[in-house]
């Protein structure tokens, strides 16, 4: 993976010193909270319901063992012994004191970590495929381009005071594991017929109050022009995006009001006038970055591991884990290990410092020192030998990290909700826990198969409910928590916004309603259909009947 050189490190140090200085001015009263707010936000520091929350960037979701251990240490030293992995593949610590923040940033910088641009109206952490460099189906390694974007977007002089936050996702595989189409900019890497690598550039996707699926403004942008083209997009947005209403300030609103075609035309006109050579990375720099990600040290192994197969036959728990949490690796004899942070009764995305240390040790011993964070709030060991999986599984199991539910009904995305967040209308975590409890019986979860349930505690949609196969949105009805259900959303390559099922349900009706939906699905299902497939085939009617018949 990419390791920071002297220049990268120097920028982190300078940034950390700058923030230390700003915090001391704030604590001394030389700055108002209004003036300080955007500065702390650009360093990832939010003021939440109970305390400051520090959001640490995990650029494109990639961590070394050393870095994960440092995060564990921060959780132990400055928080209550855990951290929370987010849908932006970052990590949040929820119990931070303002006066500790500069020391934390220094401690992070020692491990090449930082909180730069994890908040504020700037270009946020770029996300990519958690299986990058491990999956056989990618056209190129998307981390190369994510790192190029990381450098370009860091402390960008022109784009640090945008109308609103700005999120970019890069994917290089036909199976989109990044939700690229619901990003401000989604980049899909592909090879053209002539073999040339290019990006399909999609803009204006997003969730929140006004959800949109991104629209393509360029079918094939030659990869070397990525940064100059992004500059053109950001410049048009910075100049024309609305600043009078924060709910209409995202680029999706600009794209929708101009129309994607007109927006694309303006971007192309701007791009034509930009000095590309000044902005785009030279081949030497791209080669340097690419070199940092190339791995040639996979062992030549047989595709089959007798130990792995024997363990699978002997141990039902292992077999279930292997079935749901392992994904095919491009190198024979290797596999991708997904670590679920959605145990029954747990908080989606939470991970204790002890668990982080366990994962870091496993990555170091068995996983080429690499860990990834997924936008579905799980972890990944991308390169593990099949021979080593039984030992990795045993260690994960001992640490409560072997929940075999990747992409199943209990692998739920939920925002922090009313338990932590000042914006929320309703609780999200207890709803997730109640639903997960119903699928704790592995046979049922397995029978239902892939089912993505996503829960947001308010219309800001941090839990991505619009793109859940089943989406759940917390709303406030005269001071009571109610929940609006949507069906048929998807954040993947088949991206689509969910359809409203019917009237909102009371808190204690939600979990029974999910049961009713699943029962209706099992009745309607044909062959190996996923919930989503069945819904798209039969529509709302049987589901509506099931839930609202049940409710009466």
């Amino acid at each position, binding site marked *: *993976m*990419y*390791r920071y*050189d*002297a*220049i*990268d490190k*120097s*920028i982190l140090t*300078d*940034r950390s*010193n*700058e923030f230390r200085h*700003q915090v001391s001015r704030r604590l001394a009263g030389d700055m108002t909270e209004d*003036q300080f707010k*955007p*500065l702390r936000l650009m360093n990832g520091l939010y003021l939440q319901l109970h305390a400051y929350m520090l959001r640490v960037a995990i650029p494109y979701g990639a961590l*070394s063992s050393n870095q994960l251990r440092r995060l564990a240490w921060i959780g132990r030293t400055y928080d209550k012994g855990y951290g929370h992995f987010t849908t932006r593949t970052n990590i949040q610590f929820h119990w931070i004191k303002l006066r500790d923040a500069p020391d934390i940033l220094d401690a992070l910088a020692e491990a090449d970590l930082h909180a730069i641009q994890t908040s504020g*109206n700037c270009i946020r952490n770029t996300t990519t495929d958690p299986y990058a460099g491990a999956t056989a189906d990618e056209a190129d390694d998307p981390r190369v381009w994510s790192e190029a974007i990381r*450098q*370009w977007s*860091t*402390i*960008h*002089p*022109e*784009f*640090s*005071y*945008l109308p609103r936050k700005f999120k970019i996702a890069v994917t290089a595989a036909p199976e989109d594991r990044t939700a690229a189409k619901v990003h401000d900019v989604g980049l899909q890497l592909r090879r053209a017929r002539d073999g040339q690598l290019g990006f399909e550039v999609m803009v204006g996707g997003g969730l929140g109050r006004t959800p949109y699926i991104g629209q393509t403004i360029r079918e094939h942008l030659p990869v070397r022009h990525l940064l100059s083209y992004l500059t053109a997009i950001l*410049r048009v947005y*910075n*100049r024309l995006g609305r*600043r009078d209403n924060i709910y209409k300030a995202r680029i999706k609103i600009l794209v929708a009001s101009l129309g994607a075609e007109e927006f694309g035309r303006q971007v192309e006109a701007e791009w034509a*006038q930009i*000095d590309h050579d*000044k*902005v785009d*990375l*030279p081949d*030497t*720099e791209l*080669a*340097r*970055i*690419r*070199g*940092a*990600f*190339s*791995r040639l040290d996979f062992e030549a192994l047989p595709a089959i591991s007798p130990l792995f197969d024997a363990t699978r036959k002997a141990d039902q728990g292992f077999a279930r884990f292997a079935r749901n949490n392992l994904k095919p690796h491009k190198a024979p004899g290797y596999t991708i290990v997904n670590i679920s942070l959605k145990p029954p009764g747990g908080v989606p995305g939470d991970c204790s410092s002890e668990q982080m240390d366990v994962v870091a040790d496993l990555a170091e011993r068995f996983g*080429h*020192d*690499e860990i990834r964070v997924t936008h579905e709030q799980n972890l990944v060991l991308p390169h593990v030998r099949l021979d080593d999986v039984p030992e990795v599984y045993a260690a994960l199991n001992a640490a409560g990290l072997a929940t075999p539910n990747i992409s199943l009904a209990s692998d739920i995305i939920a925002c922090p909700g009313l338990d932590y967040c000042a914006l929320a209308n309703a609780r999200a975590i207890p709803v997730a826990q109640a639903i997960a409890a119903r699928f704790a019986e592995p046979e049922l979860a397995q029978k239902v198969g892939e089912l993505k349930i996503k829960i947001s505690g308010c219309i800001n949609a941090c839990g991505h409910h619009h793109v859940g196969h089943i989406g759940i949105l917390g709303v406030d009805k005269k001071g009571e928590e109610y929940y609006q259900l949507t069906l048929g959303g998807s954040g993947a390559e088949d991206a689509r916004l969910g359809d409203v099922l019917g009237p909102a349900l009371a808190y204690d009706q939600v979990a029974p309603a999910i049961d009713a939906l699943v029962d209706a699905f099992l009745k309607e299902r044909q062959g190996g259909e996923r919930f989503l497939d069945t819904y798209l085939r039969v529509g709302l009617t049987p589901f509506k009947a099931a839930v609202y018949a049940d409710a009466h």
Partner: protein
Amino acid sequence: MLIKLHDHHVETAEDAFVVLEADEPAPAQGPVLVSLARFQADGDAWLSAGRKVGVVLQPDEPVEGLAYDLPRLSLVALTFPKFRDGRAYSAAALLRERYGFTGEVRAVGDVLREQAHFMVRCGFDAFEPSDGSTPEQWARSAFRFHHVYQAAADDRAPAFLEREGAGSASPPRSV
């Protein structure tokens, strides 16, 4: 107070320009700084009289509207109605990079030292800080970073060019 940047030095400067409000009569001589509308009304007369003229642009007045006048202008002042309103950064970058404007580009309005780094990199070379910043404070904030990642309107070499200059001293790293 007016602060100017010359060859990486930041110092206080006398403001030679008189700011004219909408219908305020112009003084008999000397440089004037006016709104775009006033410039469109009276600019030609002042310029033909050999006076220095500056224009204050609001964020919703695109720099493109000044394209043909720029060679005759001594100063373009770009307004930050709130420090969070970042449109003037793009305006400054366009003035310098697209139109090759070599006159003064001044930041006016809600101008805070925390933004100094961004302003200098986008091509601003004069500042009216609204937070009482001294030139020393301004310079510290503007030049805090020893390295930068992007090419911008200033003359700083981005990291990728610095690395190129280092040649084989910084080989690709891999684990």
